[in-house]
């Protein structure tokens, strides 16, 4: 299903001859004639128009009745009138009808000043009301959810929120209840509307019926300014608009439509996570260790201490970068490590380094898809990633393609996917067996590269399941593959990526411009960090590093063994995100120096950091990020730095200077420039060119500077047999991490540990939903609550990674691992709301080694 070709036609509107793309709805086409048609219910992001509000009626020559311009596609030669007496009286009538039951409480309504109902009433209404009957009353305001308040008297029943729930998020929670003039918005059973995307209805509501409990009564539109930026809380990198008061406070975040990135949606973490910026607990000044205590210190002192320690360690320094580290910070970290300290040991991946050659192959423009390719794909293949937790906006994108463009979805995952109900074929493999599953798929697709017998049983798949998936894929034209970074983790990561490339080869992806792969990474800016040279084997621009360094797992070992002595943690807490938590504990304990950049002092940092520099929030930062599909986008500073926070690029530059290699940069844009000049395939790029919507580097001529990398051709390795026993898999939670813990509105969503089991396994273990169990492996154990999942592959157990307590990283070791599960009697996760409990317990309180 290629992108449709659209031709221009001409038509007449209010006496003017104008042109517009054929098939555009009149309400949009009118804009090309500078004509504004008022509307409420029309919102193309929600799918087909519903024609409920009737605000957009216009006169079309040759049609006896007025027509809704939101649902009438423009045709060549159409003659449209939007200002005739008939149209005007219809517009007056609709406004009058809308207002008769509206409370008209604008002075106390949050929407006042930015309300389409106000604007349209003024612009197209008759300016008077003849309604003297009693108005409709509801109890108000009520909590629709902990995040959204509903005032049903203000609601104009435009269908937007309900359609969002039904047709975009597909959570099917919001409905209309009752009928006629008694109709109101609610949930089936009066339960709160909770879902990862619920906040979008705040942007959609054209009146003050839905308001954000976090923003309610905080400001009026004329008190605030708006600033466009990016959300840096997950790899989706949605475009946001921040509402700023007094240049210093973020009051709200909402979507800044970018069809190439986010389709104008945000998840609730992106929408409410801004609260963490102003958390009391946020670090606002440097801290330096003084004996067993961390004490606030002046910048100069902190920099001095850090530089001295790093200089001492020199090539014995390692660095981990994570999260939302910008391209510029990544670049300067590389400079600090490689130029100033002479150390090649830097990594941005928890699960093991990507083979440099594979990194270059995966970056090939002809192998990569853009986000909007998902819209027009025939088949979307989802490989071992749970989009709704890892890149939520892509989950909506896949749903949209399936619902509106009849794209077929194939899920190939270890854990039951939330996209299974939309999938034509859903294939389950054993946790960690992605390599075998992909090899089996490659074989079914006729790839000559696949070898080995009984591949599906090595993958732990139902016989026939892979064949069914292959059948769907074989019949497809354009295929977009969304694959989770986790398949490339561990010792067999490279073989798994090779198998993925074999699948891509069998699908002929390089020959189809709208087919391609998109990696769904663990860290927000994983792609940017890699391309800026934060990888043990890669220099900026995906060229081979002059000296190969150690990947994260080896760094842990070397620190523990005293082979390395210092560690820089740039937005990373290995105890929260890296496997083999105990090994990292030893590493941190043994390291002479730990220099961290962070916004919140986690337990690990409190216990082990030598110097901590306060990190900027994304609202304070200036820089660029690279989307998983290769799009460079700008993070723009929206508020002044809080407390003593300094731009991190300048701190990194200063540290490098004090360690003997001062980079020649004096401003953030200069760092960007230097990065672009260093990375071949970003050559000539400027911040202006990136602009507000971003630029995919693959779309620029300089893309040809990507070091050449041929597609692999040899036979695949034979994947190993599955280990016996209960195999452990992990799934991250969107709601894990410090942002949610420190954003009061979101705290109720912070995850607790749960063990997802197939009913058959639960039965065998004698446990049921809600029971508490102990999960143990390699002498480590943690507690979890059992959650039964019908679609779970027997023999698998899935735990949540990143929880504050009982983090699954205690058990994971980067290879497929089996665990013991036993029923316990005690309480899990302590009492009370999980986020209110202290973060991960200190080293002493960790599950006792056995």
């Amino acid at each position, binding site marked *: 299903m290629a992108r449709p070709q659209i031709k221009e036609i001409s038509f007449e509107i209010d006496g003017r001859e104008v042109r517009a793309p054929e098939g555009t709805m009149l309400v949009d086409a009118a804009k090309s004639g500078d004509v504004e048609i008022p509307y409420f219910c029309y919102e193309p992001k929600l799918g087909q128009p519903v024609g*409920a*509000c*009737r605000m957009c009626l216009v006169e079309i020559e040759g049609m006896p*009745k007025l027509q809704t311009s939101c649902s009438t596609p423009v045709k060549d030669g159409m003659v449209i009138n939007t200002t005739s007496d008939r149209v005007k009286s219809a517009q007056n009538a609709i406004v009058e009808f809308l207002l008769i039951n509206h409370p008209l409480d604008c002075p106390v309504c949050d929407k006042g000043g930015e309300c389409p109902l106000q604007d349209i009433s003024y612009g197209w209404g008759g300016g008077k009301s003849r309604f003297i009957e009693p108005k409709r009353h509801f109890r108000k305001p009520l909590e629709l959810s902990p995040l959204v308040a509903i005032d049903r008297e203000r609601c104009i029943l435009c269908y937007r929120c309900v359609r969002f729930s039904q047709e975009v998020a597909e959570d099917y929670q919001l409905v209309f209840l009752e009928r006629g003039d008694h*109709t109101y918005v609610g949930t089936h059973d009066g339960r709160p509307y909770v879902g990862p995307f619920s906040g979008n209805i705040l942007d959609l509501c054209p009146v003050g019926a839905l308001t954000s409990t976090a923003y309610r009564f905080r400001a009026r539109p004329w008190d605030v300014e708006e600033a466009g930026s990016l959300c840096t809380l997950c790899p989706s990198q949605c475009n946001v608009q921040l509402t700023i008061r007094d240049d210093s406070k973020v009051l709200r975040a909402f979507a800044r439509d970018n069809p190439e990135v986010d389709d104008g949606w945000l998840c609730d973490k992106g929408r409410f996570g801004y609260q963490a910026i102003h958390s009391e607990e946020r670090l606002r000044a440097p801290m330096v260790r003084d004996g067993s205590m961390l004490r606030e210190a002046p910048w100069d002192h902190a920099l001095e201490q850090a530089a001295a320690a790093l200089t001492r360690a020199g090539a014995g320094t390692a660095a981990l970068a994570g999260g939302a580290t910008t391209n510029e910070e990544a670049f300067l970290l590389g400079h600090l490590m490689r130029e100033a300290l002479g150390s090649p040991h830097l990594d941005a991946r928890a699960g093991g380094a990507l083979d440099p050659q594979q990194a270059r192959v995966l970056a090939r423009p002809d192998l990569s898809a853009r986000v909007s390719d998902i819209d027009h794909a025939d088949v979307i293949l989802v490989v071992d990633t749970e989009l709704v937790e890892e890149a939520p906006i892509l989950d909506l994108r896949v749903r949209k393609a399936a619902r509106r463009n009849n794209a077929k979805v194939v899920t190939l995952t270890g854990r039951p996917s939330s996209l299974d109900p939309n999938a034509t074929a859903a294939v389950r493999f054993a946790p960690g067996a992605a390599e075998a599953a992909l090899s089996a798929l490659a074989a079914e697709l006729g790839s000559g590269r696949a070898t080995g017998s009984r591949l599906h049983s090595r993958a732990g798949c139902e016989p026939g399941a892979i064949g069914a998936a292959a059948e769907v894929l074989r019949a497809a034209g354009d295929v977009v593959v969304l694959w989770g970074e986790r398949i490339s983790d561990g010792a067999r990561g490279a073989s798994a990526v090779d198998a993925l490339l074999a699948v891509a080869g069998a699908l002929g992806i390089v020959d189809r411009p709208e087919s391609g792969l998109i990696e769904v990474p663990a860290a927000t800016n994983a792609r940017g960090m890699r391309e800026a040279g934060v990888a043990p084997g890669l220099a900026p621009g995906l060229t081979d590093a002059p000296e190969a360094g150690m990947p994260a797992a080896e760094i842990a070992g070397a620190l523990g063994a005293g082979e390395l002595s210092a560690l820089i943690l740039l937005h990373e807490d290995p105890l929260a995100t890296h496997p083999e938590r105990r090994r990292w504990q030893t590493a941190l304990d043994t390291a002479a120096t730990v220099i961290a950049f962070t916004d919140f002092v986690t337990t690990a940092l409190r216990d082990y950091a030598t110097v901590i520099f306060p990190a900027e929030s994304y609202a304070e930062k200036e820089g660029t990020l690279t989307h998983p599909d290769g799009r460079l986008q700008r993070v723009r500073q929206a508020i002044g730095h809080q407390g003593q926070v300094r731009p991190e690029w300048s701190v990194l530059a200063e540290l490098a200077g004090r360690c003997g290699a001062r980079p020649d940069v004096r401003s953030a844009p200069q760092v960007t420039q230097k990065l672009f000049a260093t990375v071949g395939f970003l050559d000539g790029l400027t911040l202006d060119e990136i602009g507000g919507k971003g630029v995919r580097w693959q779309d620029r001529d300089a893309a040809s500077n990507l070091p050449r990398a041929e597609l692999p051709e040899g036979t695949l390795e034979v994947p190993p047999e599955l280990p016996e026993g209960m195999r452990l898999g992990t799934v991250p939670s969107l709601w894990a991490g410090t942002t949610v813990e420190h954003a009061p509105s979101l705290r109720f969503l912070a995850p607790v540990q749960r063990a997802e089991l197939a009913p058959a396994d639960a039965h065998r273990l004698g446990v049921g939903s809600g029971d508490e169990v102990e999960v143990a492996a390699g002498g480590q154990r943690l507690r979890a609550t059992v959650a039964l999942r019908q679609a779970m592959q027997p023999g698998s157990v899935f735990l949540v990674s990143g929880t504050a307590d009982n983090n699954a990283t205690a058990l994971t070791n980067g290879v497929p691992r089996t665990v013991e599960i036993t029923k316990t009697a005690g309480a899990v996760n302590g009492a009370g709301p999980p986020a209110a409990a202290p973060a991960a317990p200190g080293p002493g309180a960790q599950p006792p080694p056995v």
Partner: protein
Amino acid sequence: MTGQLKKLTANYDEPDLHRMEVYERLGGYGSARKAALDMTQEEVLDQLEASGLRGRGGAGFSMGKKASFIPEGTMEKYLCCNADESEPGAFKDRVLMQRNPHQLIEGCIIGAIAAQATRAFIFIRGEYETQAKMLDAAVTEAYEKGYLGSGIFGSQTDLELVVHRGQGAYICGEESALLDALEGKRGNPRLKPPFPANQGLYQGPTLINNVETLCNTPAIIEHGPEWFAAMGVDKSTGTKMVSVSGNVQRAGNFEVELGIPVREIIYGLAGGPPEGRDLKCFFPGGSSAPVLTKEHLDLPFTYEAMAEAGSMLGTASMIVVDDSQPIVPLALNLAGFYRHESCGKCVPCREGTNWTVHMLERIDQGDATPMDLEIMAEVQTNIIGNCLCVLGDSMAMPIGSMIKHFRGEFEQHIEAARAARDREHIRAFSAGELAAAGEAGPA
């Protein structure tokens, strides 16, 4: 033309007509068999179109033409029989289904062949429990005979037929709301286009017809389109079931040839208003049709003549109002029905029906002025033509017509009710029942 012309109802006096053997003995299923075995789909379509048969469910659109809109292609196609009959005054489909369920099933088979549909649904009003049971029994008989199911009548054609009971909402008779309801959704009308013929049930091409429309098809196939077209006048061909109710001496269903004078229906067949009373107005096509008055009695009962007179033939449900009925309570009752049945999806209908009811209540209770009559008339104008489906118009048009024909009576009612209310206030005030007149409100 006078009296009834019984074609659809020709065999209605036959005992046990609802049973397969009786229906077949009288020639039943011959047409469906012929359509399935001896005719091509195009031939069936052509005959239906040539007969001039128009939809009997309200809009009066040519049945054959509508069926011809169903696109070619391999996608699943559907036939839906609209048996929701919820319009006040309409009770003809009920008798058609109850007396002769096999005639409808045979009609469905013919309709399905014309539309190339392999799945058919009869969406029957929830309250029609008896009729639904009888249909179910008849459908079972038809399956047993092989007239439904795979390879009907031994042909290559498959047809599944399901009787689905509605849940008691008038709006579910609107064809697109019917489809949503069938799909298990809230029964709200859909925006058109796309029309059901292109994208109907489960997005597939769908032919929707009224019970009576489909019941007419077996005879057309049996006797030929010319036979059918010879009945009636102009573009109103065939016979029509007329349900007469209200202030008449013999209420009931009558089958008449289209073109019969209205007077003949109201006075000849239904016996006219009770002794000593005179005709005030009548709804020629159900409660949604604007009222007509005595001056229209000699019009021929055709789609064209009713439309020209400013009303419509609609479902041909003749509600007769005599001069003993005051107009305001009638209007209030009617508006109340539509307000209650409005689905609430679109603004003019949702708010306009509600507002109209409030105003009529005030008029009735003596709390209105003639100004309100102006506003009420304008509200009707503001509804008409601006709604998503025609339910809004279905209230606004008759209410508007009542104001037009009986403005004087409305005004008198306003004045009289005000005077009565004032008198009551004064009485209550003198009796000490009210502390102050200011607190007075409508009872």
